[in-house]
């Protein structure tokens, strides 16, 4: 395990103990950001939420600025998600269904905190270092991210000291209580991962596929929807218009982020005889959603944030042209 030290050292993320001791919380966030973009690994992680434990196998490759990944559920239905530099495949074997999409985000890598936003985090969070510990047999540094208001969760990040990979996350709600937890129980850093590791367990031919048959055209110009008010620290980070897979309806997708937490706003024109609109709050674990109808459009706000945040942003949406 972890025999590829030279490989990672060459990437410039290997640190000595003395250097680690001097690193600030911001530096650790930067290292997490870098590691997510540069380190390849395979492992197993558990996702703990409410009264459930889910175990997932993950293979992640970062090579030459490109990324691909496979997640495979080890519990229950053999769901899996495979994504490469510009496509995502979701396998739902029990439903005999698959969803295929071309990726919307920056193809250069998974979205992550940008350096410029890390300084801005101080506006929304208190950052401090905790104790060093061990996760999955690896030495880790605890990073405590405490929210300054009720519009975001807190976080506890355990970061691999050697590689900078995030090995455990607590999503912290009220009274410092962990709402969700992700944790690697096993991880191996790799210099190269074989193509076979990204092959699906369920043959594609066994499923009925929905979604993009060909690469969608470039996004249309945004239609003018915007949030008139935002909780402190949140900024618009993305705004694109395109067609949603499965039902192929046009939507506008806005993303607001405070640098750690992200909220998506989906705007879709209501169709005569279409699905009943979603109105009000819903949630699934730590994910909150809020729906409202305005000017004949369904506005849906989704994010791994407290309900207050999706409610606040949803109610402040308006069309400016």
């Amino acid at each position, binding site marked *: 395990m972890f025999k590829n030290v030279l490989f990672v050292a060459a990437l410039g993320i290997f640190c000595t103990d003395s250097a680690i001791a001097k690193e600030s919380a911001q530096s650790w966030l930067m290292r997490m950001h870098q*590691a997510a973009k540069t380190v390849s690994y395979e492992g197993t*992680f*558990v*996702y*703990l*939420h*409410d*009264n*459930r434990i*889910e*175990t997932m*196998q993950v293979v992640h490759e970062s090579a030459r600025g490109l990324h691909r990944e496979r*997640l495979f*559920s*080890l*519990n229950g*239905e*053999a*769901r899996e998600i495979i994504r490469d530099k510009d496509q*995502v495949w979701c396998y739902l074997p029990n*439903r005999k269904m698959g*969803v295929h999409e071309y*990726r*919307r*985000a920056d193809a250069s890598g*998974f*979205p*992550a905190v940008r350096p410029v936003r890390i300084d801005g985090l101080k506006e929304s969070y208190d950052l401090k270092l905790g104790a060093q510990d061990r996760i*999955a*047999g690896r030495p880790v540094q605890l990073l405590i991210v405490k929210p300054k208001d009720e519009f975001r969760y807190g976080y506890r990040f355990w970061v691999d000291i050697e590689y900078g990979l*995030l090995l455990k*996350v*607590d*999503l912290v709600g009220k009274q410092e209580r*962990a*709402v*969700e*937890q*992700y*944790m690697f*129980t096993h991880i191996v850093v790799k210099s190269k991962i074989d193509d076979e590791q990204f092959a699906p367990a369920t043959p594609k031919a066994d499923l009925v596929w929905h979604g993009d048959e060909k690469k969608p055209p470039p996004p249309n110009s945004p239609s003018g929807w915007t949030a008139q008010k935002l909780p402190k620290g949140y900024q618009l980070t993305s705004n694109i218009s395109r067609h949603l897979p499965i039902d192929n309806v046009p939507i506008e997708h806005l*993303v607001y982020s405070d640098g*750690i937490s*992200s909220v*998506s706003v989906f705007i879709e024109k209501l169709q005569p005889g279409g*699905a*009943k609109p*979603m109105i*009000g*709050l*819903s*949630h*699934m*674990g730590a*994910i909150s*959603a809020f729906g409202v109808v305005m000017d004949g459009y369904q506005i*849906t706000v*989704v*994010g*791994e944030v407290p309900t207050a945040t999706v409610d606040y942003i949803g109610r402040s949406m308006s069309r400016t042209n």
Partner: protein
Amino acid sequence: MQVNKEKISVVLDSEHSSTEFDEVMSLLKTDESVRRSWHCYQIIGAAIRKELGVSIDSQLVDRIRAQIEKEPTCLAPWRLRNLVDYQFFKPIVSLAVAASVATVAIFAVQQFELMPSTVINQVADTGVLGAHSDATRWDTLSPEMENKMNTYLVEHGEFTSMSGMNGLSAYAKFVSYDAAP
């Protein structure tokens, strides 16, 4: 079955060859019992290493241990004793134990799997996190809206920052989503 467990053990101990790793991954894809064993090994191994965090019921390991002691069948008594004594001797033998924790956990799991299903459920339901009764389905939504929300979730995952496991968060939710009605 025993052969499969030994193979899993080798992989968990990171002593596998590439062939053995591929073989185990293949078994995980096709064999439910192997998946179940793998899952139990991971959880109990992490519990014994105290890596599940403060939000997990701290008595989980004790419950497993107590249940193992009650079992009339004992496949590996000396290893069981290692597990029972683990916490008492940890300060003294931590280095030695560290090397064998995974093995101990595996034998613990073998016992664990012999438990009546009610006991397994009780352990699995040990208070993990949160207060909601079901967090793997959207509440209040029609099936049609649920499908749409799941699509939104995947779309949102493309733009999720590092709040999850290097961006895995939203995808993990999707993969773990409970499709059962």
